[in-house]
């Protein structure tokens, strides 16, 4: 009798464990892939640690957050990756994008969902900026469907300042804060967020650090206008597992 009970429990737990494994794999933080690489190490957070306490120097803090593709709360037990020596690295060193591409003859933004990063190139093809992002997740329970970010080439047609808010999310109410939003396809936008977590976690928009979104919004992005400007081009690349 006992045997049957044990087998029954095992059968019951098997699918649960598979589901848990899947969930863990989808929400794995980006930077942890560097743990075994030369020049980097991973550390586990203790209770009460914050980015500010951990890295008092703003430059080091910024680099660490970009490496981990996240600026959210450091809860106890969370692992983050840090370089062994902050002096040897800079923003261009750790860029996942090439510093120079063939001249696109117009401003260009490349959104790479596999690298969880965005790059901004000037018309000559020089990398002027890159930053972390969080794009649409595979499944959104509130709308009961996939909410992956659309892929293709688009043009920015509208941008707003710090007060920008969503009309749709949270479902039924709207009002979700999307500072410095830059719309490129219907309701899809690049915008700042306090929840860039190091994995794909949005409803389809592309979340950026708020400071990055501000810089892009004010210094880089052009919007379509009657004088002939057709808006900054945005290339959203496809996911590898797609």
């Amino acid at each position, binding site marked *: 009798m006992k045997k049957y009970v044990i087998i029954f429990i095992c059968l019951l737990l098997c699918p649960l464990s598979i589901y848990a494994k899947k969930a863990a794999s989808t929400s794995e933080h980006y930077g942890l892939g560097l743990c075994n690489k030369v020049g980097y190490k991973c550390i586990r957070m203790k209770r009460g640690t914050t980015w500010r306490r951990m890295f008092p120097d703003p430059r080091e803090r910024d680099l660490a957050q970009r490496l981990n593709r996240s600026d959210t709360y450091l809860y106890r037990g969370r692992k983050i990756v840090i370089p062994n020596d902050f002096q040897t690295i800079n923003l261009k060193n750790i860029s996942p994008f090439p510093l120079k*591409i063939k001249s696109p003859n117009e401003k260009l933004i490349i959104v790479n969902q596999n690298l969880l990063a965005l790059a901004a190139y000037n018309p000559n093809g020089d990398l002027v900026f890159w930053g972390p992002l969080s794009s649409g997740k595979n499944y959104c329970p509130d709308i009961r469907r996939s909410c992956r970010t659309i892929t*293709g*080439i*688009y043009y920015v047609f509208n941008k707003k300042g710090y007060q920008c808010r969503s009309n749709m999310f949270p479902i039924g109410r709207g009002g979700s804060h999307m500072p410095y939003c830059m719309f490129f396809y*219907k309701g899809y936008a690049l915008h700042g967020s306090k929840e860039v977590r190091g994995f794909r976690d949005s409803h389809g928009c592309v979340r950026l650090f708020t400071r990055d979104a501000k810089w892009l919004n004010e210094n880089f992005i052009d919007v379509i206008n009657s004088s002939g400007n*057709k808006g900054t081009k945005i*290339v959203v690349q*496809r996911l590898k597992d797609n």
Partner: protein
Amino acid sequence: MYKRIIIYFTIIFSCLLFNVASASNHRTKKKTRFPVGCKPIGYKFDLYNVIFTPSTKKYLQTVYFIRNKSNRTIQLLQANDGSDPYIINIDGNIKPYRWSVLSVSENKIKYICTNYDKRKNKHRVISCQNALQICEFPHTRFGTNHRGTYWLTLNKSRRSAINATRFHGILLSDPKQKKRKIHDMLFPDPKQKETQEVRI
């Protein structure tokens, strides 16, 4: 008496059979119609590949209707010949006898057609010319909020593909552009004529 009845019966039966056979033959040979206003322009087949070069030059935004005329699923893979500074990476699978719609805002996009070979368990490059039927709407009108290069819809019937495109808010044949073209034909600009003459 019986003989006559049998003869009449065989004649009628053979006629019926012939009708059914011809109808089915007609159905298989029936030429697929492009949607109204969609013309087979703005692309070329280059060896095994297909290259989309939109015919609209002034406002570079157009729509292609693509049909898989083969009986196998075709995978369209975007080819990068090194001239692009980036990879757009928008591939698509088109099921047999289905229509897909591609919105294009680039000067040139090149695709390779492949087909999954079950026996060898790998993709095989096939000729796009033998597998695809393509047409372009030369006078489309897009809203500002959905311009770009992307798959508007995949694997639909002809009617549903048109409806899906309209659902996105795209005017497939913009009356303003058509009017402008007719006007230009009827009343050609004299300045333009002069410049043409000078060129000659």
